[in-house]
């Protein structure tokens, strides 16, 4: 019976065994299999799932008091994640860093508050909401970010909501995602 190494089960002949071409073939094949498994880990390290999307430069039209999903029409890059109209679908389970920028472009009649959300499967996981004290006709930019523990097929998207009068308010947005670790 051949011996085997502890981690990758590379076979080698033991004392007293016949050494023929099959022994060398088995050894070479086992080393090859070990190299393949390390190659896979190296590929995963070099190609960490990540992506970045943005809306059209003119922004997304949002109506007062309505939670509006951002629609990302421009893909800056996407590797290892699936791009959908509103964001990303996760392929590889893991913890991901998600960052989202919202930049209101147009003025309206009045603004009393504005909110940016990052959602996971349509449930808010990160949010920032700001309000104004006086009579203001525009909203300010919002950046939000955080870690999200994701399963395969989870969707990561973003919403904007504002309160006040008038509109619509056009909002530019950019969302990015990068895998941090396995779960």
């Amino acid at each position: 019976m051949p011996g085997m190494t502890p981690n990758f089960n590379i076979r080698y002949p033991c004392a007293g065994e016949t050494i023929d071409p099959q022994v060398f073939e088995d050894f070479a094949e086992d080393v090859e299999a070990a190299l393949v498994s390390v190659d896979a880990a190296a590929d995963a390290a070099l190609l960490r799932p990540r992506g970045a999307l943005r809306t059209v430069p003119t922004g997304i039209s949002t109506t007062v008091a309505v939670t509006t999903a951002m629609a990302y029409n421009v893909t800056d890059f996407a590797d290892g994640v699936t791009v959908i109209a509103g964001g990303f679908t996760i392929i590889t389970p893991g913890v991901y860093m998600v960052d989202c920028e919202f930049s209101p472009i147009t003025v309206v009649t009045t603004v009393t508050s504005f909110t940016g959300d990052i959602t996971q499967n349509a449930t808010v996981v990160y949010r920032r909401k700001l309000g104004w004290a006086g009579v203001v006709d525009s909203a300010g930019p919002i950046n939000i970010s955080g870690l999200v523990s994701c399963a395969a097929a989870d969707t990561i998207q973003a919403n904007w909501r504002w309160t006040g009068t008038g509109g619509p308010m056009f909002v530019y947005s950019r969302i990015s995602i990068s895998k941090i670790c396995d779960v």
Partner: protein
Amino acid sequence: METIGNHGLHCPEFDDYAAVALYMQNLGTLIDEQLQEQLEALQGFMDRPTIIVTNSVAAVIADSNTYTQLWDTVVFNNSTFMSLEIGASGSIPGTPSNLIRIGSAAGAAVTVPYLRGSYSIGACTSMTATGAVTAQSYRNLTVTSDDQSLAIDTFSCSASDTTYDSNTGGNESQNVKFSCELERTSGVIVEGFVTHGNTASTVSIAAGALFWVTYNGPIDIIEVA
């Protein structure tokens, strides 16, 4: 035996043929060890130590009360040196704190040293007045990283987000994120404090708030003289 390359591998020469079996065993074992080291290094690179915690139930607090015990549940933790501690001795004397501990406690034996280097830290909370809203009252989330092993107990890093309630339906939400460097081996605590100025009623902090720490990588530069 003739040595080949830089990984300690070798091949038999003319006088070694009788020891082929032993040679193959040694060679296979060396290859196995070298590849296992590379695999562990790659996996360590991919699996950055990370902890995410949350509050499983909403917390209701009075105004001007710095609430230090929001976090009660671990969502994810793949590290061996970070943990959620309930009711620990935090940075506010005499006030128990639910905090993330990095490394062993300051002053105790270092049984779980942390990885030296850069860390990213962040959190998000959402608050709604339980009754009347004091117009434009503040809602604040502050996250601090405190190295208690230092002789002078000061915050190593911190970030704060303050929003103001304009009485537009609640869910006043705060979001912080910052990076810091940890250069010792143990004794660091990371805390997330919540406070508000709504004097007209208490404020509820929604369940599902998130608080997290992740290791970015080393920052040491090794000089060879």
